[in-house]
């Protein structure tokens, strides 16, 4: 299924856009998505860490992704 992914901070620069469409397997997990993202954008692997948010909440690695989820790549935060 095709999903839209939001990218912030350095992830936006790595992806080359603030949001993009990405093909993932139906019923795939956050972990599956991260592996696919890292294949397409190997520079993600060089980050200290990054997380995925689903519907604006930090998601666990095993959480499944639904078609209607708002998906975001959250690189290490640095507010303040």
């Amino acid at each position, binding site marked *: 299924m095709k999903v839209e992914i939001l990218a912030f*901070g350095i992830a*936006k620069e790595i992806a080359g856009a603030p949001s993009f469409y990405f093909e993932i397997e139906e019923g795939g997990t956050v972990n599956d998505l991260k592996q696919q993202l890292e294949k397409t954008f190997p520079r993600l692997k060089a980050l200290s860490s990054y997380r995925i948010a689903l519907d*604006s909440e930090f998601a666990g690695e095993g959480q499944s992704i639904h078609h209607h989820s708002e998906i975001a790549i959250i*690189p290490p*935060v*640095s*507010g*303040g």
Partner: protein
Amino acid sequence: MKTDLSISDKPLELQACIDWVKDNEAGGIDIFIGTVRRSTNKKKVVRLEFECYERMALKEMEKIATEIGEKFPVQKLLIHHRTGVLSVGDIPVIIAVAAPHRDAAFGACRYAIDTLKETVPIWKKEIFEDGEVWVAAHP
């Protein structure tokens, strides 16, 4: 506990924050003001650029407020964060807490800024004279 949580691309207004947090039931007010410093690792900072995932950032700020309500007896909590382009001396964040006693005010203020830096999806890029870096992005 009353809360005032916001994210804005306009300059933060310190006096308005103090006026809001003042409370006749409070024994003290604790304020943390983040400021843009002139240099990092001896490199001269030209400007900082902040961006944010606003919907999620406000949710995470709400969570901090809930936790503070559970951990500290405080009357008022304000967290204002700025986005956009900031210069040296500008204020990216203000946290203000009013509490009956100073221990709670100091504790809550510290908890708010420390947790914000860990969990709230806001990112800053430091722009130097000879390059730029997303803070904390790489090991």
